[in-house]
């Protein structure tokens, strides 16, 4: 049998020429990455606007007539679902995964380019189906992003007829899209690495993306199964999740189903999902920190193992989202324990990021600022997570704003911080131009401080007992007047925070034309994506010959070397060594 190695796949020689083949029906991973990113950022903005509506209602109740209890729930559901699935998952894996994997492993494209193209189009359709639910009778579903039955499909929940069907259909399409993409990411990393690129020489970004893709492939099926079974309950009258119940005075035909079963399935997907979003972010932030501190990442092997162990353990903690579901206490104890164990590798990573910075030659540019901002917000969200991981603390705090504050800090703000760091870091590679640094720094400070102003006070509201998913507090006696004032203040900060993002969007568009030319490798980075012959990389990435890898991705400030950094594809012969006496002088200084 003759087998064709990926390096010489025949499809490289016919470069697409027409506009449509190049930018619309493209099989080039870089174009697909940009398509993914643009769609994701667009729905992300939709979700942001929805949160503005919610904040307006919470801060200034009885002021806005277009927000009623039903629409509040609909905004909340769509906001949560879009942010977690359609923005973060799609942008991190579909966007950054697609762009970086082939470049970082030193290959010309994904292993299955056609499948990759289908993936982005399925994603696009899933977004259209989701947004269509705003225009159907009854509007989108308002069941909360967790979609718990039985209330999801009962009259009384907004969107219980059309909205929920579109939501389930959209999720199913998204999962198909993700699976086609994920199979590509995993196979490309395992099979298409260039000569010399061993697994342990890969940048941590790849480890994060690889583990997250693997987890996504195994976790999304749980959501698919629950979506299919719920759709059958809704459309065919089966009783997978629906118990015998009376609704609005009518006894329904359901009997024998178990809502709890849905919760298990959902969180078997839902918790790993948190890490599907977090692990690529962990990886990317490691590389940004190392590059801009001009130091190797502290404890590389430990970091790799931490990523893999976190990935594995996160399949064993799902029921910590269900402490208040009436489960067996022994169960609760088991899940509290696994939850606290997962904190160990996570904390290790935080130490290693901090130690990477220690005595580094830090450049405080915009990617670095966002990366450091991430370390702060992640520590913060992680600590409140330790509180909630304990059954006894969680029970009073569950379903209060403390939880809202926690998950926004840990997976909303932190991940978004990394996304900004990554965009500021890799934009010069994608477009060939640098972003405007002044605007970028303004964007950072306002976003960082704004995020704290919005989400820190929410912890306090949670302690007071302000419930989440409530349209209005009304004249609740246990809430002091100050809680209402605080709510109004949060809303003002949130609106400012949102308006600030305009600076970012303007910067992205303005710099496309007017940013200073980036040239080759503006940051002096070692990993392969910066070593392509053309910037931005051309179709096929590498010109005539694939790169050959001689070292790991973190050779910054190597003792004895003249160069400040050694790219991964630099052979040993090209490294200029210092004369022996100066060598020891450098060594004693550091």
């Amino acid at each position: 049998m003759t087998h064709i190695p990926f390096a010489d796949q025949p499809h490289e020689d016919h470069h697409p020429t027409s506009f449509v083949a190049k930018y619309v029906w493209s099989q080039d991973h870089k174009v697909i990455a940009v398509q993914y990113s643009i769609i994701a950022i667009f729905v992300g903005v939709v979700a942001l606007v929805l949160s503005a509506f919610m904040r307006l209602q919470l801060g200034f109740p009885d002021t806005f007539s277009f927000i009623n209890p039903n629409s509040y729930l609909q905004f909340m559901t769509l906001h949560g679902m879009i942010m977690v699935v359609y923005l973060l998952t799609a942008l991190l894996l579909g966007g950054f995964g697609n762009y970086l994997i082939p470049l970082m492993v030193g290959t010309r494209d994904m292993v299955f380019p056609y499948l990759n193209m289908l993936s982005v189009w399925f994603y696009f359709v899933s977004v259209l189906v989701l947004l269509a639910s705003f225009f159907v009778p009854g509007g989108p579903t308002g069941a909360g992003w967790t979609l718990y039955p039985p209330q999801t499909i009962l009259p009384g929940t907004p969107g219980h007829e059309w909205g929920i069907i579109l939501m389930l259909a959209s999720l199913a399409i998204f999962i198909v899209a993700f699976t086609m993409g994920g199979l590509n990411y995993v196979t490309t990393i395992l099979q298409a690495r260039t000569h010399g690129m061993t697994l342990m020489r890969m940048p941590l970004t790849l480890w994060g993306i690889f583990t997250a893709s693997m987890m996504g492939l195994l976790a999304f099926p749980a959501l698919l199964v629950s979506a299919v079974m719920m759709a059958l309950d809704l459309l065919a009258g089966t009783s997978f999740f629906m118990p015998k119940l009376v609704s609005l005075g009518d006894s329904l035909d359901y009997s024998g189903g178990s809502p709890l079963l849905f919760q298990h399935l959902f969180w078997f997907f839902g918790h790993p999902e948190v890490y599907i979003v977090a692990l690529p972010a962990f990886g990317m932030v490691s590389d940004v920190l190392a590059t801009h501190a001009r130091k190797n990442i502290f404890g590389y092997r430990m970091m790799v193992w931490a990523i893999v162990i976190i990935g594995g353990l996160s399949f064993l903690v799902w029921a910590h989202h269900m402490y208040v579901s009436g489960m067996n206490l022994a169960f609760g104890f088991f899940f509290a324990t696994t939850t606290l164990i997962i904190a160990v590798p996570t904390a290790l990573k935080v130490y290693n990021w901090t130690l990477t910075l220690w005595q580094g030659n830090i450049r405080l540019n915009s990617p670095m600022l966002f990366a450091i901002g991430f370390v702060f917000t992640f520590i913060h969200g992680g600590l409140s997570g330790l509180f909630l991981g304990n059954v006894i603390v969680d029970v009073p705090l569950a379903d209060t704003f403390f939880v809202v504050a926690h998950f926004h800090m840990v997976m909303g703000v932190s991940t978004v911080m990394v996304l900004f760091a990554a965009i500021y870091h890799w934009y010069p590679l994608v477009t060939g131009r640098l972003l405007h640094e002044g605007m970028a720094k303004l964007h950072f400070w306002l976003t960082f401080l704004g995020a704290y102003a919005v989400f820190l006070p929410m912890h306090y509201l949670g302690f007071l007992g302000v419930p989440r998913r409530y349209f209005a507090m009304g004249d609740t006696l246990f809430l002091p007047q100050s809680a209402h004032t605080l709510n109004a203040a949060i809303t003002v900060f949130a609106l400012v925070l949102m308006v600030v993002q305009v600076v970012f969007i303007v910067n992205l568009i303005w710099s496309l034309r007017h940013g200073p030319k980036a040239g080759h490798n503006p940051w002096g980075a070692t990993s392969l994506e910066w070593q392509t012959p053309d910037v931005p990389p051309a179709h096929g990435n590498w010109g005539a010959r694939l790169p050959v890898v001689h070292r790991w991705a973190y050779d910054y400030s190597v003792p004895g070397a003249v160069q400040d950094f050694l790219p991964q594809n630099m052979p040993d012969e090209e490294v200029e060594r210092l004369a022996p006496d100066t060598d020891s002088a450098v060594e004693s200084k550091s």
Partner: protein
Amino acid sequence: MNPFRKIMEKPWDPSAEESAMALAIGPGTQYAGQRLMLHIFLVIVSVVFLLMFATFITHSQFPGFQPLAGEPWSPFANTTALWLNTLWLALSSLAMHVALIRLRHDAATQALWAMLLAAFLAAAFVLAQFSLWRTVSGMGYALHGNPANSYFYLLTAVHALHLLGGLFVLVRAIWLLWRGAETARMQTSLSLSTTYWHYLLVLWALVFFLLTRSPETYRAIAVFCGLG
């Protein structure tokens, strides 16, 4: 390099010997990529079915659950029809295997016939499953009747969908081979399809097993899996 060595590597100090070893490995072949993708895909399908099995076993412990086998009047008290369907699928798998062996011996025509037979038998299986549906629903066991019925339709339908997907790929391969495609290329494609076929046979056997157990066996499985 063995896997243990791979993860124990110290990437920051590439001794000359290890570097040379690293350079020796490079990008895999397209076939290796496709095979890896198929294997991961099979793991995903297994997860889908495992989750459905787990919820099925959980349901079997709820009051009001009426298994489809066990009592003499229940639809699967007599499993002849199920065994017959199994036979179609098993023969189809066998035909695939024969086709692969014939192709390896460069007997393209014989392989083509075996593949046609496999496709035909697989289609027969899907039709037979469909007629089984008709029989069961004719006996009054509707989709929405009892969770056990729902699972019967759900599991067989999802299994059949996977088989239809495979059938689509197989028919395409038959077409290509008929048009005189290179045997070497068809061999890789056929060997992947054959793996998929065998997998679906095992999967069907599991579905069959699970749907026709008695309440006592469900109880035992549930206790064993900690779901009871």
